[in-house]
């Protein structure tokens, strides 16, 4: 009984370590075989259409609504201190620093990450990847790397669009609907938001999230057992793992970027 339990623990540990090692080797292989993704940039553009352009609707609409809600809630609180004009600062800083990169990344993980995993998992289950290898085409260079770079390139654009749309939503509610002074809204925002400190750090965050999400999604798809349950389980794991990774990375990055002053 005890022996079984220890054996069980041992095999789980070995499996876990093997998986981490496999993931690391997979990631290095994707980076090493990235040449094709840039030489034949058409492949990457195709994937940017599927992960970037098709995510636009959900990103833009969510951004608009998040900004509008921020405008309403921020006004409610700020108004009690008589500083409604600071609404622009509140909306812009919370979007550019945190909500833009993080919420866009979470949406990207569930919209594009899951699709990538399902696609790669099915390609593996139907032995398309093996067929490519038989034809001396490296599936990592031909299938995986373009999707990776497409995700990494799309993510900062999506995050920037989310933030811009959110600020527009906050402007609609704050200035047009409630009637905060337009000049104060923009000028206070401009004096408080710094390009390097806030906007550039937000972009760096979104690039890191893009790398994390697409790497996890591709690995889960590549590692999925070639069955229907295997692919569905891998898709679920992609969304859960990459969302948790985004939140954890966000905490670490924020701790480094905005510590102190």
């Amino acid at each position, binding site marked *: 009984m005890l022996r079984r339990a220890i054996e069980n623990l041992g095999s789980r540990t070995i499996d876990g370590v093997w998986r981490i090692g496999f993931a690391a080797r997979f990631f290095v292989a994707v980076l090493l075989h990235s040449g094709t993704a840039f030489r034949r940039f058409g492949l990457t553009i195709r994937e*940017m259409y599927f992960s970037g352009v098709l995510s636009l609707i959900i990103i833009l609409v969510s951004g608009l609504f998040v900004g509008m809600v921020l405008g309403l809630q921020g006004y409610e609180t700020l108004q009690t201190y008589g500083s409604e004009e600071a609404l622009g600062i509140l909306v812009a800083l919370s979007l*550019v620093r945190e909500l833009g990169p993080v919420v866009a990344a979470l949406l990207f993980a569930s919209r594009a990450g899951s699709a990538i995993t399902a696609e790669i998992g099915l390609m593996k289950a139907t032995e398309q990847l093996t067929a490519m290898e038989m034809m001396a085409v490296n599936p990592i260079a031909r299938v995986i790397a373009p999707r990776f770079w497409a995700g990494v390139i799309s993510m900062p654009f999506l995050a920037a*669009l989310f933030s811009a749309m959110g600020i527009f939503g906050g402007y609609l509610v704050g200035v047009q609907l409630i009637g905060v002074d337009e000049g104060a809204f923009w000028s206070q925002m*401009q004096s408080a*938001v*710094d*390009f390097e400190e806030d906007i550039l750090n937000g972009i760096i965050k979104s690039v890191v999230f893009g790398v994390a999400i697409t790497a996890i999604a591709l690995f889960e798809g590549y590692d999925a057992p070639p069955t229907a349950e295997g692919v569905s389980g891998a898709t679920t794991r992609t969304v859960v793992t990459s969302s948790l990774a985004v939140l954890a990375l966000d905490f670490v990055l924020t701790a480094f970027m905005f510590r102190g002053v």
Partner: protein
Amino acid sequence: MSKTVLDLWVGLFVIAGIAALLFLALKVGSMTAVNVGNSYEVVARFDNIGGLKPRAPVKSAGVVVGRVASIQFDNETYEAAVTLRIDKRYQFPKDTSAAIMTSGLLGEQYIGLEAGGDDKMLKDRDRIFLTQSAVVLENLIGHLIYGKAQEGAPQ
């Protein structure tokens, strides 16, 4: 879907993304404020800087002319040495005075410059000698109470 339509959509996506980045950089943040190449630095020493922070605005007549570059504590004079980075377009006389002020009752703190009458202008690495510390609310209230107590004291 044909390849050109796909390319078109991705192109539009990239243009929209870059437009959003430009919007963030120019309209939301103010990239035009002070660029490093066209500025000079002067040092001002204060007894007490209150809640002044790096990157706080430096204003003259209410117009932003620069930003606070850094704040250091001088362990010999026990003063705060504040480095101001001022735009080259704005030149100030040597006897300009600097004061730490607060915008509104609870607003952020900034440095106000008041131009003097000297012929010579401030240059890079110069020092502003006339400074006025931040008003600390507790001290002000203390003075007020002390003054009232003095008034009411029997002669």
